[in-house]
């Protein structure tokens, strides 16, 4: 499972959004997540990928989160 697939699975588990609807281009606003929900997601990602994600980084859509995680894992 690559980073995007894992991220999509975690977002689907946190929301009512089906995995198939979660794309790299989908914004968190479209998925129905507010600013605090995004923090929940970020913390779940930190636990899953063993990385530390700075909230100051602009994370507006799924692709942003995937890019940040991929860069931290390198």
């Amino acid at each position: 499972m690559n980073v995007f697939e894992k991220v999509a699975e975690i977002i689907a588990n946190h929301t009512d959004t089906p995995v198939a609807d979660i794309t790299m281009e989908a914004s968190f606003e479209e998925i129905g997540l507010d600013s605090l929900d995004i923090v929940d997601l970020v913390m779940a990602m930190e636990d899953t990928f063993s990385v530390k994600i700075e909230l100051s980084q602009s994370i507006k859509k799924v692709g942003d989160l995937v890019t940040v995680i991929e860069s931290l894992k390198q």
Partner: protein
Amino acid sequence: MKSSMSFRILGTGSACPACVKTNEDLSSFLDTDDEWISSRTGTKSRHVSTTETLTEIAATAAKQALEDANIDAKDLDLIICATIQGDYITPSLACMVQKEIGAQCPAFDINAACPGFIYALDIALGYFARNKSSKILIVGTEMMSKHVDWQDRATCVLFGDGAGAVVLGEGDSLLAIKTTAKGELDILNIHGKNGNSPFSQHEKQDEFVHMNGQEVYKFAVISMCRDLKDVIAAAGLTEEEIDFVLPHQANIKIIETAMNRLKIPKERYYNNIERFGNTSAASIPILLDELNRSKRLQNGQNIAMVSFGGGLTTGAVIIKWQK
């Protein structure tokens, strides 16, 4: 962290301004609504001072705690008020409370933001440990309505005013306590007064609450889980052995997220944010007083309290109830 010589809680009290403002009341002058506020914060109403001073509500809570403890104010050896700011820069709020209740002991304030009450318990522990005191009054109290910008819908809806008090006497109720601080300005702050010095070259700042909600949320969830686990372990207990958790009432989503990360059964968390909002240093002693007055506390129960706030500071404590 663990102490053999400590204290027990002899009595509790709490008081709030009479005026209650609901989310609907706030939406009459702010671009917000009940659904938005209650789903994101858990608050439906809060007490807001109209004519009451902080001294008055703190003294009312203190008198209740003294009555519950069956202690005369003249028998107090120390008064500590936990608050970010009393009615006056000086005298301290603790001195004003001392005057109001007719006590004759030393009195001072401490500012550790929301965990101030837990910091005050830790200070009291030191007094008991060196046999300096046998009766200590602690009041956690705050008038956040003076510190928020009532035109900022992101912050003013979160807070409320109130006071909670405990009277401590000698005993061995305290099983473990922990306080932390991590110097950090930008995430949560309220600037002090600007003054009018003709020599000042400081840029004038507003005097309202400024908060980065996302950063506070993350810090709060992580520190709550870490500090609760630490004090439970230091007390020699397991998460299942905690009978009540009194979490700082900052935001119900913070509490729920932390609950999901811990093994303590969810029905053991006691919350009242729906009726009070975030009362800063007053939140935990108000929770404790509600539990005590509703006779839900029994001797031998393990009570965990945990808090976080501006500083950034955190605190957690385990008390074995023995009243």
